[in-house]
């Protein structure tokens, strides 16, 4: 990382006050990319995870390199938290006919990178996701006297079914349901950014081609359209 002036959330907030920049608007744009739903907050903090890094990747990172989680800032989840993340990510994105499980393509590492990041939007997500993981473990012990990763598939589903859809969740599960949706969104954002995720969706681009032929005949036929551009 070769940035001379890394921007921390602290320093951007200070700039905001000094100059009356519309930080709220800007942060809203940033947050929009991360996740959609408004999350009712859990209480509590101090969950054992190390504090996130103070510095980001700077305004002038080396764009010629490929990166992986941990390259720019330390991952902060505890071993137990990572295990919970892995179990939940694999429940949402399991190995099946559409491809490998989330944990086989480093989704838990990417989630760890996300919640360990120094930026305001990610720290806000951290404040929503870490208590959610804690709730999941508490609920698992309460119902089955076991840690969530040790539950059977059916046991995991019993909990997930209660929290997977906020509109249907009972009042005592509303917060957990908001957490679940946010976690699903983040896990899917990571999973579908991998080679395996692309295959699972049917995205076959990002390769240089000698020519661009447009949609193939079977696509045109299915849509009932004809190619209207002669092309070059």
């Amino acid at each position, binding site marked *: 990382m070769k940035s001379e*002036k890394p921007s921390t*959330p602290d320093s*951007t907030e200070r*700039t905001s006050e*000094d100059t*009356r*920049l*519309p930080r709220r*608007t*800007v942060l809203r744009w*940033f947050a929009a*990319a991360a*996740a*959609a*739903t408004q999350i009712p907050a859990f209480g509590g903090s101090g969950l054992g995870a190390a504090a996130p890094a103070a510095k980001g*990747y700077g*305004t002038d*990172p080396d*764009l*010629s390199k490929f*990166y*992986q989680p941990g390259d720019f800032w330390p991952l902060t989840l505890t071993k137990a938290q990572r295990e919970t993340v892995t179990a939940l990510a694999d429940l*949402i994105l*399991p190995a*099946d006919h559409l*491809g490998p499980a989330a944990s086989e*393509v480093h989704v838990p590492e990417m989630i760890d990178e*996300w919640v360990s990041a120094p*930026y305001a939007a990610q720290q806000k997500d951290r404040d929503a996701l870490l208590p959610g993981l804690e709730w999941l473990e508490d609920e698992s012990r309460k119902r089955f006297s076991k840690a969530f990763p040790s539950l059977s598939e059916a046991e995991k589903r019993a909990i997930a079914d209660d929290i*997977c859809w906020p509109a*249907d969740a009972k009042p005592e599960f509303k917060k957990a349901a908001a957490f679940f949706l946010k976690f*699903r*969104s983040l896990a899917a*954002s*990571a999973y*579908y*950014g*991998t*080679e395996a995720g*692309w295959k699972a969706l*049917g*995205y*076959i*681009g*990002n390769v*240089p*081609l000698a020519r*661009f032929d*447009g*949609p*193939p005949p079977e*696509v045109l036929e299915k*849509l*009932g*359209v*004809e190619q*209207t*551009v002669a*092309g*070059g």
Partner: protein
Amino acid sequence: MAVITTSKAQTEYDVIIVGSGAGGGQTAYTLTLAGLKCVMLEAGRAYDPATQTAMFHRPDQAPLLNTPTPDKQMGFTDATVDGGWNIPAEPYTQASDKPEEQFQWWRPRMLGGRTNHWGRMSLRNGPYDFKPRSRDGLGFDWPIAYDDIEPYYTRVEMLIGVFGTNEGRENTPNSPPGVLLPPPKARAAELYLQKHVKTLGIPVIPIHRAVLTRPLDAETIPAKLHPGNAWAQRIVADSMRVRGACFWATDCHRGCSLRANYQSTTVHLPPALATGNLDIIPNAHAREVTLGQDGKANGVLYIDKSTGQEARVRAKAVVLAASSGETVRLLLNSKSAAFPQGLGNGHGLVGKYIMDSVGGSVGGQIPALENLPPHNEDGAGGPHLYIPWWLYQEQLAGKLDFPRGYHIEFSSSRSMPGGRSPLGDDLARGAYGTKFKEEARRHYGSQVGYTVRGEMIANENSFAELDPAVKDKWGIPVLRWHWRWSDHELNMVAHGIKTFTAMIEAMGGKAHVRAGSTAKNIIEPGGKVIHEVGGALMGSDPAKSVCNEWNQLWDVKNIFLCDGSPFPSNADKNPTLTIMALAWRAADKIVEQARKGNL
């Protein structure tokens, strides 16, 4: 001559050019190929798109899945470095606390300026667009007409390479035969749209974008661009031969190491440097234009950011191409006994009438596009088709409640996934497991989004001035912004929302418009479209304009404004092509003056 540091600058140049984007790049190109010695000041660092571009990164190969952060505000792989909506060392302020009265100011700080983050839309203004006040009594006419600028549109298109077709539509000009490159084939969702909105009377045609769908013809184009100048022809031909054609992969916003799309750093600056007539000083943050005893500009003071020291370059003429906002700031900060209110600002018009494009989007989901056989539609890294403004006659007949037009942009439905969930939170009712993955696959490719790109009319409430108190890190007064959309723009967006909903429904889909959504909460904030123009309007009356039809300051004849700042109006057509055409035209005038010894 080359990319240099302050200490290597020559004692005097013919022309100083502030800014290295579309306007500065075009001006440098034209002047140096005509033999003028130029120095270019760029406020950011040097940049080499051939080696510094993140072309093929998957989201999982970039931090935070390539999503925007305060450090990289359009995402990690976006070409822009050291820039964005907010640059901590270089603040700007807002006159109002109300978000709808604020301006979001995107500023790159790197060689190539805003041409690094650009959709490459290259639409010509039409004849109406130069005389809008004559048509509807609003805003300002230009002192030039379409025919005055047409030859320059053609030259720019030949130089940078623009694909598209000639459709002969009203106020949507054709290019001369053979100028445009062949358009890429249409994508599935574009064809489906085209077919199903015919009944609504909406045309869907190939867009014009600055992407090479085939290599430029280096054998014949240079002679058309520089007749009688074999030396210039050879330099331009060599530069054209280095550019590769599009290889139909990667988003143009990442930059292009093939040089297949237009960036100032791949098209304008290489031949300008090859002439040996251009020095570029990066990290040079311009502060003030200085005047000599004769009342003419003789130099530019700048902060060398690499040392923090103030420095100065001298020349016979000065071109400001720093973007509307920065050009306004430079003029206002250039105070002297002759110009106590800033250069060219005796009448107080510098900074007034800044415009952006009107933006607003509606998305939808089209069941017919679900489960299509997987196919690669990366294409030319941006839209292939678009909808030009199609209701000129209805507007003329008074049938619409807004006076100016908009065009509609859209991009691929099968674009690179990752960084966000392919299934929105509101879809698939809490599905997880294999059901979620199946739903995601079914939905992928069926999401469409349409966006307004419309004409904003200059108004009294949208302008920039110097903040009386706040200064940047180097002690230079910063801009304070004022902004207000009028009903002209809000009614346009309301029309767009209705139209997009009808388009999506015509395709059998469902529009994602929240109940209670209005134009006011769908219109993009001012500045958000990054089509900032105006602030130093050209006109035919020195009492009512800042510069003349040659982008030449009325008050100081050897200062030229070669960015969007002289625009008297901001047609729905994206401004970059017009900025380049005007810059070439102004540069020809500078060359003419230089040859007469008038600089």
